[in-house]
C-alpha cells in the first residue's frame, strides 16, 4: 500500500471537490474493496476522501412512489429495510446472497456498485492485465477463465462485474444519482452506468473523475414475485458463477437480468419480452451474441437452467 493522506469530507460537494482537486485522490466508503486492492497496489491513491460523514445513509420515499437509497446505506441496512423487503424483494435477496455478514455491515450502496472485477489475473500484479495496466495484454484470455465473461467481452478483457446488488438494481431499472466537483448533479440509468470493456477495459463505469454517487433511486414498485437465484460452487461467501435476478408477474411475463456473465449486469430487454415462452427462449435472446471460453461455456446452459428454476419458483409462489 502506497502512502496516502486522509481527510473526511462534510458535504457531498466538498467531497467531490476534494477528489477532483488532488490527482490520484479517491473516495473511501466502507473500504472493503478499495483497501483490498490498495494492499496489492492495484489501486494506488495518494489521497483518500472518506465519505462516511456525508449523511447519505438514509432510505427515503421519492415523490413518485419509489425509494431513494443514500449512497452510504450499508448493504445490511438496505437488505433489512421493510419497504425493500416488501416491494423490492429481488434487491434484498441479491444483497444477502453476496459476500458475508461482516462485509455487508461495512459495504455501502455506492461502493458495492463500484466494486471491481474478481478476475484472478487482475488480482495478481505480476500478470498482464489491460484493466490494471492498459496495454499490457490480457492474461485471462487463453488462461483460467471459468469465472469470467461469456458475453459482451472484448479481445482486450473478458472480466465480469462480480457484484450481486447491481444485478437486482438493473432489473428494477434503478437510477444512480451523482454530484460532480463543480456541484452539478446528474442521474444515470443503471443500464448506462457500467461499461463493456471494449478497448478501454480500465474503465468500469461512466463516472467522471471526482464524480460522487449520492444515491440510487428505485422507481415505484411493479409487483410480481421477486427472485434472485445465485449459482456457485460453495453454498455461501462466494461470487456467482451465474446469477439471475427476476421479477415475474402472474401472467408469466417479467424481466430478468443476469450476473456473473458480463462486464456489467446483463439484461436484454428484448429477452424480457419472451418470458412467457420459457427460460430457453429468454436466454436464446439474451445470450445470442455470447462468446464463451472453453472454461466457461457452461454458464450459458446454466443461465437457462437457473432461469427455469426461477420461473418454476415464480409459478409455485
Amino acid at each position, binding site marked *: *500500500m*502506497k*502512502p*496516502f*493522506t*486522509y481527510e473526511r469530507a462534510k458535504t457531498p460537494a466538498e467531497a467531490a471537490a476534494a477528489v477532483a482537486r488532488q490527482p490520484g485522490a479517491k473516495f*473511501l466508503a*466502507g*473500504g*472493503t474493496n478499495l*483497501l*483490498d486492492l490498495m*494492499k496489492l*497496489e492495484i489501486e494506488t491513491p*495518494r489521497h*483518500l476522501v*472518506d465519505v*462516511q460523514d456525508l449523511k447519505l445513509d438514509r432510505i427515503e420515499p421519492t415523490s413518485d412512489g419509489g425509494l431513494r437509497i443514500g449512497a452510504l446505506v450499508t448493504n*445490511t441496512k438496505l*437488505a*433489512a429495510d*421493510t419497504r425493500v*423487503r*416488501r416491494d423490492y*424483494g429481488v434487491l*434484498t*435477496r441479491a444483497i*444477502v*446472497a453476496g*459476500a*458475508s*455478514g*461482516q*462485509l455487508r*455491515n*461495512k459495504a455501502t450502496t455506492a461502493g458495492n456498485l463500484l466494486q471491481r472485477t474478481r478476475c484472478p489475473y487482475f488480482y495478481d*500484479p*505480476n*500478470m*498482464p492485465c489491460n484493466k490494471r*495496466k492498459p*496495454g*499490457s*495484454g*490480457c*492474461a485471462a484470455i*487463453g*488462461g483460467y477463465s471459468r469465472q469470467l465473461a461469456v458475453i459482451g467481452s472484448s479481445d482486450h478483457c473478458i472480466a465480469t462485474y462480480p457484484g450481486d446488488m447491481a444485478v437486482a438494481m438493473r432489473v428494477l431499472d434503478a437510477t444512480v444519482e451523482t454530484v460532480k466537483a463543480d456541484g452539478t448533479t446528474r442521474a444515470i440509468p443503471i443500464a448506462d452506468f457500467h461499461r463493456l470493456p471494449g478497448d478501454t477495459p480500465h474503465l468500469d463505469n461512466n463516472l467522471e473523475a471526482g464524480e460522487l454517487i449520492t444515491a440510487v433511486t428505485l422507481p415505484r414498485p411493479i409487483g410480481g414475485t421477486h427472485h434472485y437465484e*445465485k449459482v456457485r460452487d460453495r*453454498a*455461501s*461467501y462466494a461470487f456467482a458463477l451465474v446469477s439471475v435476478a427476476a421479477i415475474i408477474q402472474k401472467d408469466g411475463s417479467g424481466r430478468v437480468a443476469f450476473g456473473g456473465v458480463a462486464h456489467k449486469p446483463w439484461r436484454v430487454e428484448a429477452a424480457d419480452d419472451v418470458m412467457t415462452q420459457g427460460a430457453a427462449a429468454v436466454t436464446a435472446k439474451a445470450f445470442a451474441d455470447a462468446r464463451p471460453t472453453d472454461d466457461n461455456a457452461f454458464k450459458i446452459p446454466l443461465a437457462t437452467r437457473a432461469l427455469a428454476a426461477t420461473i418454476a419458483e415464480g409459478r409455485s409462489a
Partner: protein
Amino acid sequence: MMSEIEISRRGVLAGSAAAAAIAAAPHVEAQPAKALPPATMPVSLTINGKRRDLTLDTRTTLLDTLREHLQLTGTKKGCDHGQCGACTVIVNGERINSCLSLAVQHQGDEVTTIEGLGTPDKLHPMQAAFVRHDGYQCGYCTPGQICSAIAVLDEIKRGDPSHVQADLTQRPQLTSLEMRERMSGNICRCGAYSNIAEAMADVAGVDVKEMEA
C-alpha cells in the same frame, strides 16, 4: 531444450510457444523519488471500554492497530483481504472484518474484541460454549468465530434477513440453516463447523438436531 525469452518489466512480449502474453514483473512506472512523506494521524477509539489515543500511519488497518500497536493479538490475521473472517471484531455493535478497515476510519468508534468479551477465568457464555462443544481446533479462527456467533444471534433476534430465508417479510427463525448461512464469513480450515453450530445452538437455547430438520 530451454529457450529463454528476455523480458523486461516494462515491455510486454507476445508469443511464447504457448502463444501467451508474457507477464511483466510487477510495478510499472517508477515511483517518483519524491514520494509523499508517510502520513500519520492521531486516532482515538474506545477498545473494550478503554479509550486509546494513538498516532498512526494512515495505512494502518484496524486489525494491525489492535495486533501490533495495542498488543491485542486475540484478533487474528488469516488473510488480510476480507476472505476468512479471522479478524472479525464488533464495532459500534456490528461485526466487521477489521483487516479491511483503516484505523482512521474509526475515530471515536467503540470496538469490542475477543479480549473484551471474557477472560479465561470468566468466560462469556459463547466462549464457554465453544469450550464445551469443542467448537475449534487450532484456535486461530476462533476469536473471529466467537465474535461473529454473538453478533449472528443478535442479527437473528433483530430480524435481519438472510439468503436462506423463505419469506423475506417474516422474521428469521433460529435454525441451524440460518446460523450456518450467517456464519459463512468465518472460515474454519480445521473444520470445526459442526461443533460451532452446536455451541451456538446451546447459547441460543435450541436443540441442534431439531434445528437440522
